[in-house]
């Protein structure tokens, strides 16, 4: 059974939000970054070869910089300790090229040479890391085209057989131990894809295509986040990467390829009519119905996802209802409009969306 995690964020009403935020920050600090709450988003615990290369480079850089910093501090302390202290009676020292200064010049020269060598070492380490990152074999890779939108992610799983491609949103599932090739695009402004446990950042620029290859070595859930300011809700443009054992991944992909199953529940049937006759149909897709717009996330298998609204809310009936009623309450400025449906219509709509598993 899939574990349903707690919401990545919980947000209050407008007036109390700053207080909540401050309290949350305090709590996080107190708990030493509340370990058990959200899925990991941590550069220092890599879950794949790419992130491991980056972590290694970080450790090398940290070690070199620590040595240099300690050396500089030690030199300053030695200089302070040994500096000649003149009293008012001693004569002024006027000889500019004393032997002592020549000796100091040699020491400065040595330090500059050491700095240059260490910097060169870091540059070489960085270049080698880049080369290592580019050497991930893409044999048998899963190809995913990711399109960033304000403020959510669309993922299209490519296949040589076009009938096997499918689209999902805000939740990537990948097979562990198999390379993944991301093709990155943007529909509006510059975004940046960042899953710290798997790889570094890569920008998604409108009108351009970038690629990113990575691999998760072991199954797990990793959190990703937009890392380039992209408007009001940049901070709430998150997603999950779920790495499965290969067989489990194939089962998930097969389920995603299916069109939506029409539920017999009268509530869901009524909700379906509301969905297709109302505002939802203008932006969303549900495969197997007449809804086929791509301005909002594909909802064909909405109920199978763990979060709503790009990682902002847990995917529960209550949160789904609150989100549809007024998305602006959770993500002010989001492009999804509020809907002033009567309560019973909203319940039916939620029942329909919950049936899309």
């Amino acid at each position: 059974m899939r574990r349903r995690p707690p919401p990545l964020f919980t947000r209050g009403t407008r007036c109390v939000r700053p207080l909540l935020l401050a309290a949350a920050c305090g709590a996080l600090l107190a708990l030493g970054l509340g370990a058990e709450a959200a899925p990991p988003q941590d550069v220092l615990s890599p879950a794949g070869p790419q992130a491991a290369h980056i972590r290694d480079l970080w450790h090398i850089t940290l070690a070199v910089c620590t040595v240099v910093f300690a050396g500089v501090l030690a030199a300053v302390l030695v200089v302070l300790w040994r500096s000649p202290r003149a009293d008012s009676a001693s004569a002024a020292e006027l000889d500019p090229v004393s032997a002592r200064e020549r000796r100091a010049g040699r020491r400065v020269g040595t330090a500059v040479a050491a700095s240059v060598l260490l910097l060169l070492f870091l540059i070489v380490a960085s270049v080698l890391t880049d080369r290592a990152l580019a050497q991930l074999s893409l044999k048998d890779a899963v190809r995913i085209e990711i399109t960033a939108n304000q403020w959510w992610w669309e993922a299209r799983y490519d296949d040589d057989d076009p009938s096997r491609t499918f689209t999902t949103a805000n939740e990537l599932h990948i097979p562990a131990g198999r390379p993944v090739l991301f093709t990155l695009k943007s529909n509006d402004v510059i975004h940046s894809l960042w899953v710290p446990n798997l790889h570094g950042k890569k920008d998604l620029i409108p009108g351009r295509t970038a690629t990113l290859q990575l691999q998760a070595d072991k199954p797990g859930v990793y959190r990703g986040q937009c890392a380039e300011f992209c408007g009001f809700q940049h901070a709430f443009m998150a997603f999950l990467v779920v790495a499965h054992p290969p067989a489990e991944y194939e089962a998930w992909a097969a389920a995603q390829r299916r069109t939506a199953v029409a539920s017999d529940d009268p509530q869901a049937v009524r909700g379906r009519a509301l969905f297709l006759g109302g505002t939802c149909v203008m932006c969303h897709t549900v495969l197997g119905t007449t809804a086929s717009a791509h301005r909002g996330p594909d909802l064909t298998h909405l109920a199978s996802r763990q979060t709503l609204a790009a990682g902002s809310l847990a995917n529960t009936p209550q949160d789904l209802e609150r989100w549809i009623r007024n998305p602006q309450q959770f993500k002010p400025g989001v492009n999804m409009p509020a809907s002033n449906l009567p309560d019973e219509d909203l319940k039916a709509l939620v029942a329909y969306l919950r049936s899309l598993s």
Partner: protein
Amino acid sequence: MKAALHSVAAMCAALCAALLATGCERERRDFEPPQGQAIAPGTRNTAQQPGEPTPAPAAQAADMPATPYTVGDNAFAVSQGKRLYRWYNCSACHAPGGGGDWGPALSDDKWIYGSAPNNIFLSIVQGRPNGMPSFGGHIPEDQVWQLVAYVRSLSGQLRKDVAPGRSDALQASEPEVSREREHPQPYLPRDGAQNPAR
């Protein structure tokens, strides 16, 4: 001399303050949901209608806008309207930039169903003969108003500091901000001519 300098400085300061004040208004963004009621679905008068057929409503009185047109001087609302124009596929018939294709041009001075904001609102909500679908029930009222404001910017009806100068996608036509103002007039297509754009 010094007094003159002071008065010039004061005038400059006042001018800057006035400019800043108007600037604030033109970018104001309201994220609270509008208080207007839902628009009743319109009559399905073309196969191009989004979604599935819905029964025709009894009366069209509910189509009258519940909220007034207030977004014509708000740059953010107009740029959202520009987005929706592409998203909701207005551009498929009226062309990106409003030059017209299967549907009439929106960037000229010819207005078959009226150029006032209310007229445009009703054209979008009710649909019009010969192909304009009714979007009543499919687009919330505040978004219809944003579309109305953008449609007006296509023929230069909005202030220069409000009309959009940026586009999410490539745009071949002149930016809305630099369009000459057209002077709308009523227009009746000739007999047999279904499409005034051609």
